[in-house]
């Protein structure tokens, strides 16, 4: 079990991260999610030993790792741009961490099979496609059976279709082989797919931790909500289960009386109902439509609808109170 | 592992090779019961003797000779002066009259009179510190082919060279960087003098006006500009009296006549000396070497190797010398002390005249 306690890290001389606490149980996949500059890579590199913390501790099964050089920690790190050794073949790359071990060849074959690159041992690294390189990098970091495998935006440079295919496969692989992993990304969908636990970082500070379901259902604040992709964050006055926004009212039975900042999930907007607005934009998402609704007073709502509404049309809709989530932030 | 062991093998081979090379530099001595005495001869790069000559010396005296070579006489002298307190050799050979005075004033020699000195003409001797070994004359060489039809005729005197008939024909060397160049300059100074109606400076001004070419060294003058030895256009060059015999000797086709000739007017005699370096531990052995250098065997070996004339008046010259060499009767000479005193000033004056 990896434990990070009260970690403080500087970035380019300035104090940056503080009071970072993280526990990664054996076999769990923890995602660290945050925008660029939030400190996710710095955190990863610090855990790996490539950077030194200013304060705090990193320990594995109670054994303190501060001061232990990276090559002695038994952790694996898969780099953002793969960092494959250009002067070695695929096989040599994968074997690098286990050179000299009696079963090395067998292990290389094994991990290459895991990532679906069986038979690639003698290929030259320079001629591989992006997806192939990524898988070689993964295989390479898995081969030495690291205590913790850290992945730094591993699918960032792949195209979307590939990404959406690979990430579930990756999760399946990690779970099947019970690999303890920390997965760093800026993409919330990846984080949701891959992790058992999520940590959301902003500017070096932890905003929220929890399971993907918890985070999704109850974002800790408006920023997190916005980062997770929630577009409809509005301030409302709630009185006896009815929320009043600047453009109308809707049911909000879960909220107490008073002024709140709430999320209205895009999926909570349904066709037909007491509210009305104009569809100003419509994007087909291959299964549903993403529609921007402009309300009477000019504010907009984003909705995910099954049916098409013509752009420019006024239409009626309602808001499902189940899809209204209160945020702890103070409203304006 | 593979890398390391191969690297080690290569490294080992190189070390072994180096060691062998270093060992082979030492005297390749025959197995002797007693360690033979070894002395070192410091000389310049033109030193050459036939195989076996130095071995003969060792066989007769039991002394081995290691030869150290410097680039030229000037470099050699500098090296001797710089290491005066802890000399790197026992005998120095190759110091000539242009540098002699300086060597003597620096006190690098130990006086020695060779037992064979009597065989050397007085004119060559230079006091008790050094022993004359050989001499050569720096003279103007001419390309016989260029003067075949006798118009113009072969110049007879230095002064002829200022005649417009010989315009653009002469190539000389820079006295600041060339030994024959300096010798020729000294010849003109000795001949025309520094005072009077027609000084050496006047002579050089006339030469410049007559199109004389100046090269940095003998190699460029002879092998790039001299028409007899290159595709160059100059038929008169400052070279040595021994150059014509050398041309015959090295010619692939046997020749009846030397392709070049020598103008005997204005030759400058360069005498080369040997001396024992002060501070040596092998004074006696060094003396023996000098005696050997004055022996008929050594003296008669020199001409065909170094293309110089033996100092010994009774040494027999090889046929190519007797047939094809011209020895000037009255070469120019100059007191070594005078040379040392004025050399820099003369060269600088010359440079000014020639560069303008």
């Amino acid at each position, binding site marked *: 079990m990896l434990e990070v306690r009260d970690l403080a890290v500087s970035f380019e001389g300035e104090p940056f991260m503080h009071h970072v606490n993280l526990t990664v149980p054996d076999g769990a996949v923890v995602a660290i999610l945050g925008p660029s500059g939030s400190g996710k890579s710095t955190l990863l590199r610090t855990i790996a030993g*490539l950077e030194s913390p200013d304060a705090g501790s990193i320990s594995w099964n109670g054994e303190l790792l501060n001061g232990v050089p990276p090559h002695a920690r*038994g952790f694996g790190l898969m780099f953002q741009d793969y960092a494959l*050794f250009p*002067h070695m073949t695929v096989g040599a790359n994968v074997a690098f961490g286990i050179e000299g071990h009696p079963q090395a060849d067998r292990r290389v074959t094994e991990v290459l099979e895991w990532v679906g690159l069986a038979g690639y041992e003698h290929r030259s690294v320079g001629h591989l496609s992006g997806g192939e390189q990524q898988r070689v990098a993964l295989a390479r970091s898995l081969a030495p059976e690291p205590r913790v495998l850290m992945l730094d935006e591993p699918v960032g440079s792949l195209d979307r279709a590939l990404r959406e295919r690979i990430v579930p496969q990756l999760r399946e692989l990690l779970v099947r082989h019970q690999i303890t992993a920390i997965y760093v990304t800026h993409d919330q969908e990846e984080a949701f797919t891959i992790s058992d636990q999520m940590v959301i970082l902003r500017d070096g500070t932890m905003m929220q931790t929890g399971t993907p379901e918890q985070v999704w259902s109850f974002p800790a604040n408006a920023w997190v909500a916005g980062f997770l992709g929630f577009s409809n964050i509005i301030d409302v006055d709630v009185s006896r289960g009815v929320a009043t926004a600047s453009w109308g009212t809707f049911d909000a039975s879960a909220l107490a009386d008073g002024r709140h900042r709430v999320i209205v999930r895009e999926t909570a907007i349904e066709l037909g109902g007491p509210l009305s607005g104009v569809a100003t934009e419509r994007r087909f998402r291959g299964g549903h439509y993403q529609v921007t609704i402009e309300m009477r007073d000019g504010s907009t709502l984003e909705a995910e609808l099954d049916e098409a509404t013509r752009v420019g049309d006024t239409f009626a809709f309602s808001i499902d109170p189940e899809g209204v989530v209160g945020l702890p932030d103070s409203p304006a | 592992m593979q890398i390391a062991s191969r690297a080690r093998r290569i490294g080992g081979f190189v070390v072994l090779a180096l060691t062998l090379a270093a060992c082979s530099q030492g005297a390749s001595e025959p197995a002797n019961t007693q360690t033979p005495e070894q002395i070192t001869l410091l000389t310049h790069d033109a030193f050459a003797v036939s195989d076996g000559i130095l071995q003969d010396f060792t066989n007769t005296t039991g002394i081995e000779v*290691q030869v150290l070579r410097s680039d030229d006489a*000037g470099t050699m002298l500098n090296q001797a002066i710089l290491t005066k307190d802890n000399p790197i050799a026992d005998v120095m050979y190759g110091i000539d009259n242009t540098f002699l005075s300086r060597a003597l004033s620096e006190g690098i020699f130990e006086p020695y009179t060779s037992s064979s000195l009597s065989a050397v003409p007085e004119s060559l001797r230079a006091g008790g510190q050094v022993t004359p070994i050989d001499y050569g004359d720096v003279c103007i060489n001419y390309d016989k082919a260029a003067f075949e039809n006798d118009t113009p005729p072969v110049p007879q005197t230095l002064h002829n060279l200022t005649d417009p008939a010989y315009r653009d024909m002469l190539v000389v060397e820079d006295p600041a960087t060339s030994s024959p160049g300096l010798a020729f300059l000294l010849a003109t100074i000795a001949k025309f003098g520094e005072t009077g109606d027609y000084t050496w400076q006047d002579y050089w001004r006339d030469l410049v006006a007559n199109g004389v070419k100046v*090269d940095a060294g003998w190699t460029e003058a002879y092998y790039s500009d001299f028409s007899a030895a290159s595709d160059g256009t100059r038929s008169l060059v400052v070279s040595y009296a021994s150059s014509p015999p050398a041309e015959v000797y090295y010619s692939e086709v046997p020749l009846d006549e030397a392709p070049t000739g020598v103008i005997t007017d204005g030759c400058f005699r360069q005498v080369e000396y040997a001396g024992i370096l002060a501070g040596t531990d092998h004074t006696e052995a060094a003396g023996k070497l000098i005696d050997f250098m004055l022996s008929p065997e050594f003296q008669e070996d020199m001409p065909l190797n170094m293309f110089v004339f033996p100092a010994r008046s009774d040494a027999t010259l090889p046929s190519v010398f007797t047939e094809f060499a011209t020895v000037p009767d009255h070469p120019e000479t100059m007191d070594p002390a005078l040379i040392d005193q004025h050399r820099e000033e003369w060269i600088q004056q010359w440079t000014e005249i020639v*560069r303008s």
Partner: protein
Amino acid sequence: MRRPLRIGDVFLVGVPLLFLAYFFAYPLGAILLKSLVTNGRLGLAPFSDVFSRGTLRGAIWFTVWQATASMLLTLAVALPAAFVFARYRFRGKSLLKAAITVPFVLPTVVVGTAFLALLGPTGIVDLSGTVWLILIAHVFFNFAVVVRTVGGFWGNLDPRLEEAARMLGASRWRAFQKVTLPLLRPALAAAGSIVFLFTFTSFGVILILGGPRFSTIEVEIYRQTITYLQLPIAAALAVIQLVGVTSILLTYSAFQRRRALELPLRPSEEVARPPRSASDRLLLSGTLVLSGLFLGTPLALLIVRSLRTNRGFGLAAYRALGTRTSALFVPPVEAITNSLLIAAAATLLAVTIGMMAAAIVAYRTSLFSRAFDVLLMLPLGTSAVTIGFGFLVALGKPIDLRTSPVLLPIAHALVAIPFVVRTAVPVMRSVRQDLRDAAAMLGATPARVWRRIDLPMISRAGLIGAGFAFAVSLGEFGATSFLARPSTPTLPIAIFRLLSRPGTFPQALALATVLMVLTAASMFAIERFRFGEVGEF
């Protein structure tokens, strides 16, 4: 930056430092002090003497500007060839690459005859007496330095960067100007600094091809020492030369101070491609033909003349080399063996010390490492006379090395180390840090990271450096001629000997041709040298 073990640090710095201190700084200091100190007092009169004389002042000025001009000209002329060797794959590439190093190795005195024949009074165009003859000769001799240094580095640069620029609408020329040239800067500066130093201390070219009209500091040092025996003035000039060189090197090092970009390096085999378009082929063939003509004509002339005998063409001169009438003290085969052995020793020494020193220079940016960098380059900018005589003055005690044959490889190594350092440093600096981090994460200790990641990637630079060192040693004439050597000559010395007497000219050229072939063969072998992953990058 990854720090190697502490002990390793001390070793990396200590060995080169000790070597340079004992075999360079100490002899240099000794000879200068000896020349400038009279009766226990340091005289500054020689300095005022130097500055009061018009000829000497003129020599100082000429030295600086001709070296600058030579450097710029060489870079410009050799750049296309560097490109061609870096980017294209073509038949005979290895052979040609070996061949272009030949001019670098030949003693000036030999090439001088060919140059005078081509560009003198009886040549194609008469440039004798002009500075152009000197500049062209400098380009001729230093062509290989630029091609191998810049070309080597260029051969590892990812061409996709240029392609990206082209895709963004830049013309070929603009992509070159805005993308390639800035990336090449470290290699250009490295090559430029070497060429500058070489031409700054150029001796043979100035003397032989310049004639009495031109003079540089080096020529004046020679004149003052050898002809006038005026050691104080010579020493003053040597100090001025050193000061000039040091200040230029310091400027160069400050210019490099910005942390070098970690560049995308790719294996050279991948970067080089056969020419595809018509313009590719034109560029390739045009450059090869022009470079070949430029470098090859004087060499061809020498070879042709070596085959000219009284009876027409033949190998008489070559046969004469083997006979006793060759006027050499030892047969030429021994000269060849001697040269090869000394070159091998010098190369080993130079590469070992040079790579150690390069590691310090490349991975540290402190004041110390910059000063260290300058110190490493100094021997290249120091007068050969001073070094040679310095050995004589300083190395007598405790062990008398003054006439030891080991001095030759040491002197050669001193001059070769700058090459090794300058070719290795840009490549060392370009190795990506994340590759090292990746290796560390896979369990490699710092030593293993060095061996498996850095070393193979810089090995090609190391081989280029080794090639240079070998060539430098084969052709070294300056410092060698001022040492008092035990009998066996090196090839350049032997050639010079044969050129200094009448009748042996064809033999000299024959031996020079042998040297040419030997150089090409050695360069070829080194280029092809592979063991393990070394050399393959």
